[in-house]
């Protein structure tokens, strides 16, 4: 019985997916609209997209931009956020700037960026960079600010310099919070990746999607939505694995701590 229940729990997400597809299928058959293909039609279109060399190159180009934008954003944002968290001067300089940029949809900056930097990889990567940066900065900032003062004092007494304390105490202590920001950043990277390609049509997964929309190939449109969604789920799952490994020390494992005075 217990084994059966555990099996059922693992099966639930799959059941949810099948359920969603079933509703989609039923709705598409009922509505019988050209712009709303059935689930089966959409899924059937997937192999032809993934089998097409051009489409694959496009998707890989998207992923490359996303990876570069994400990596550069993380590399810049974590140190900045940590510095902001530990230095009031740095925080009060950057905070107003970030507060202005935070609520602006980064894709809305795309036309201006295109004007300056052209419609190529640079513009799109920059938009992804902007989209990822803010949550990572914010969470690194919050994480660094919450680091216990006494922990830093303990390090100082051992002879760690201010710079060493930032890298060897603040960074690991804030890591769980930083990685939460990175996870949000990863999803935002995917979103800005697609929207940037929607605005600057040239290549990429978003380009395939919106070209298909223009040409009325609705099964391809929905197939692309499934592909992008699957990419999101896959990347998030991968990231979550890495995250769980890195911050194993902070996850609650035992409900009751070992009792021993």
């Amino acid at each position, binding site marked *: 019985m217990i084994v059966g229940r555990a099996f059922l729990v693992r099966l639930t997400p799959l059941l949810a997916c099948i359920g969603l597809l079933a509703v989609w299928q039923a709705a598409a058959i009922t509505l019988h609209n050209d712009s709303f293909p059935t689930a089966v039609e959409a899924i059937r279109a997937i192999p032809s997209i993934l089998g097409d060399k051009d489409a694959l190159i496009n998707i890989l180009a998207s992923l490359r931009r996303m990876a570069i934008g994400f990596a550069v954003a993380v590399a810049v944002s974590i140190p900045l956020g940590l510095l902001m968290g530990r230095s009031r001067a740095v925080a009060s300089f950057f905070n107003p700037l970030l507060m202005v940029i935070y609520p602006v949809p980064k894709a809305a900056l795309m036309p201006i960026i295109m004007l300056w930097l052209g419609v190529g990889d640079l513009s799109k990567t920059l938009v992804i960079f902007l989209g990822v940066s803010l949550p990572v900065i914010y969470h690194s900032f919050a994480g660094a600010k919450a680091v*216990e003062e006494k*922990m830093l004092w303990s390090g100082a007494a*051992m002879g760690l310099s201010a710079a060493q304390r930032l890298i060897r105490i603040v960074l690991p202590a804030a890591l769980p919070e930083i990685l939460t920001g990175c996870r949000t950043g990863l999803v935002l990277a995917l979103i800005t990746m697609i929207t940037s390609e929607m605005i600057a049509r040239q290549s990429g997964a978003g380009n395939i999607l919106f070209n298909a929309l223009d040409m009325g190939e609705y099964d391809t449109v929905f197939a692309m939505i499934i592909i992008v969604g699957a990419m999101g789920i896959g990347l998030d799952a991968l990231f979550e694995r890495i995250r769980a490994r890195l911050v194993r020390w902070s996850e609650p494992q035992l409900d009751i701590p070992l009792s021993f005075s």
Partner: protein
Amino acid sequence: MKAARSDAEMAAAPAPKPATAMIEIDHVSQVFQTSARQDHLALSDISLTIEDGAFVSILGPSGCGKSTLLYIVGGFVRPTTGAARMKGKTITGPGPDRGPVFQEFALFPWKSVLGNVMYGPRQQGVKQADAEAQSRALLEMVGLKGFENFYPKELSGGMKQRVALARTLAYHPEVLLMDEPFGALDAHTRTRLQNDLLDIWERDRKTVVFVTHSVEEAVFLSDKVVMMTRSPGRIRQVIDIDLPRPRRRSELLLDPRYQKYVVDIERMFDDSGESEPRP
């Protein structure tokens, strides 16, 4: 030659350690700015000498600035006026000669128990293998053999404080600065840790500055109790605790001299209208 040498031997053998000043606190005052932007005098003109090898407790009601005084000695807080000196040198910042142990443990949660204890020696340039051997020995001394690979979150409060003590002892500070180290622990655990701390201290008699608000704890552990007044913190009285060592809790609690120290100190707090310090 011969005579001089035997003189020296005679002088050295029976006499206790010569009383040399380890820490001097010289007219230290501390002013904090409150959130309402008003000046709050936390410590007022404190002067105190702590001798090499002495176990000194700083006792006072909460909010009397006793922890602040300890942080000044640690170099974590800069005094507004006055200075603290260690072996004659003015303290300008933290250093491995003064090892803190905090009530909050302040362990590095991403490091294992062993990793925490090895952190200081590694920072001091001790080789990996040597640091590990020393740290394992220290963990055994504080009663944590077998817990080397645990993470701090997997330990109880008492165990965490044992790790924190071992972590500080690992880099061989000359002075231990203990900031209400057992304040967050239950009574039973607290008693065990007091006993174990005394056992460990008996081995090398490091200088210890121990901040507490418990009269019993201060009398039980210390050679000297520095009583402080409520804010602004001033030294009210310094009391020498003349009780034999090594101290056994079971004997000491029955000792009328111990009881008298406790009662006298508690009465002094009562007489001054201070809220009664309780463990």
